[in-house]
C-alpha cells in the first residue's frame, strides 16, 4: 500500500535507521586519552618543536615595515607543524579582544606556506616557552584564521589590556586540525 510520504518523514525514517545501525559507542577512557593535549601525548616531539620555536628570531622593525599596507599588529613567531616537517611563518594578529573571560582572535599567516582549513593553535608563553592555551582556529573567507576560546582567569586578566599593536606575550605552534582526528 502506498501513501503520501513527505521529505520530512523520509529524513526522519532515515535517521531512525541510522540510529539502529549505529556502531558501538567508544569507551570513555579511550576518548579521554585521545583528548589529552598533544604536548602531554608526545612530550619529546613538543620539546623539539618548542626549542625550534624559541630559536625563531623576528626582526620587528623589518617585519613592521613589510606590513604597512592595511594591516597592523606585531608578528608572532610561529611554527607550523605538519606530520613530518616544521615550517616557520610569522603570524600577524589582526584582531584581539578579551571580554568576560573569552578570547576572540584573528590572525593571518604571511607568507602562507600551505593553506589549511583549520589549525589547532597552541599558545606558548614568550618567556618560559610553556604551553598556556590551546584552541581551534578556522579559515575565514578573507584568508584569516579566527578563533574563540575560554581563557583561564589569570590569562584573561593579563590579556584583557592587550592591544593588537602590542608585542604579544606568546608564540604559536600550529597543527592542522585534521591531525587530531
Amino acid at each position, binding site marked *: 500500500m502506498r501513501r503520501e510520504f513527505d521529505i520530512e518523514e523520509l529524513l526522519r525514517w*532515515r535517521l531512525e535507521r541510522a540510529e539502529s545501525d549505529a556502531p558501538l559507542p567508544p569507551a570513555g577512557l579511550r576518548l579521554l586519552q585521545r583528548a589529552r593535549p598533544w604536548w602531554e601525548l608526545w612530550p619529546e616531539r613538543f620539546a623539539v618543536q618548542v626549542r625550534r620555536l624559541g630559536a625563531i628570531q623576528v626582526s620587528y622593525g623589518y617585519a613592521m615595515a613589510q606590513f604597512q599596507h592595511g594591516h597592523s599588529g606585531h608578528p608572532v613567531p610561529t611554527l607550523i607543524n605538519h606530520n613530518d616537517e616544521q615550517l616557520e611563518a610569522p603570524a600577524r594578529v589582526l584582531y584581539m579582544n578579551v571580554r568576560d573571560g573569552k578570547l576572540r582572535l584573528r590572525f593571518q599567516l604571511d607568507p602562507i606556506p600551505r593553506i589549511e582549513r583549520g589549525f589547532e593553535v597552541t599558545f606558548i608563553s614568550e618567556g618560559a616557552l610553556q604551553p598556556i592555551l590551546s584552541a581551534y582556529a578556522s579559515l575565514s573567507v578573507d584568508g584569516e584564521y579566527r578563533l574563540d576560546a575560554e581563557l583561564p582567569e589569570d590569562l584573561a586578566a593579563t590579556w584583557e589590556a592587550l592591544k593588537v599593536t602590542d608585542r604579544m606575550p606568546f608564540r604559536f605552534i600550529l597543527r592542522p586540525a585534521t591531525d587530531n582526528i
Partner: protein
Amino acid sequence: MNASAQVRGRTYVHVTSSASGLSLMDTESQTALAGYPVSGLPLPRDDSRSAWPDAWLINAVRRDPPDEMSLDVLVTRYWKTLFARCQILTLDREAASDLAQEAWLRILRARRSLEPDGNFHAYIVTVATNLWRDRNRTARRAGAMADSRLESLDAADPDHGQPMALVDVVPDATTLSMDEQVLLKMDIDRGLQRLSPHLRDVLVSRFVGGESAAEIGRRYDRTEQTISSWIREASREMRVYLGESRNYDARAENR
C-alpha cells in the same frame, strides 16, 4: 571552532566563583539537586550512574580527573542519536563515526566550560554539525555550490509553497521488506549526496534539527524567504532524484 557554542541562543560559558573556587553552577546546583557530585566529594563506586541526570554526569566529567564511568554513561546515552545525525550529514558510516568522536574530543578538551544545566544533546549535535560545516567550507568556496548559484535560487519558487509530497514514488517505509528498506536507505543517501552541502545542511537543519527558516537564515546571514526557497529547492531535487530512481527500479522489476 571552540568547544563553547551557542545552542538555540544559549551560550555555554564557564563561570567560577573566586571566593569558593567552585563553579557557580556547582554552587547553585547544590541547593537544587540533592546528592549532586560537586568537586571534592567522592563519587560512588557502583553503577548507579546510568540513572543520573545529564547535569550530574556532566559535573562528574568536569572534575579533575574526570570520572570515566560518568563519561561512559554520557557517551552511551547520546551515541546513537549523535551518530545518526553525523551519518545523515556525511552519508558515510566511517566518516560519521569519526565526526561523532571528534565532536566528543572537542568537548572533552574544553570540558571545564561545559554547562551542566544546558541541553547537552543539542550541544554535542551542534558541535558535530559545526565541525562538518567547517570541513565543507573550503569545498563550497571552490565553486560546486557557489554563492552565485544560491542567489539564483532566492527568487525561485517552483512549487509556489505547496508541500513536497512524494505520492506514488516512495512507499510507506513501515510496510517495506528488509531488502526494500536497504534500497530506500541507499536512495535517500544518494539523493542527499547529490545536494550541495549548503542545501543538505538547510534540509537537515529544517526537517531533522527542527530549526525554523528564520533561525537557519541567521546562521547563513540570509533572509527567511531565501532559506525557505533553498529548502524548497533541496526538497524538489530530492523528489526528482527519488522519483527517477524509484521509477527506474519499478521498471526494472517489471521487466
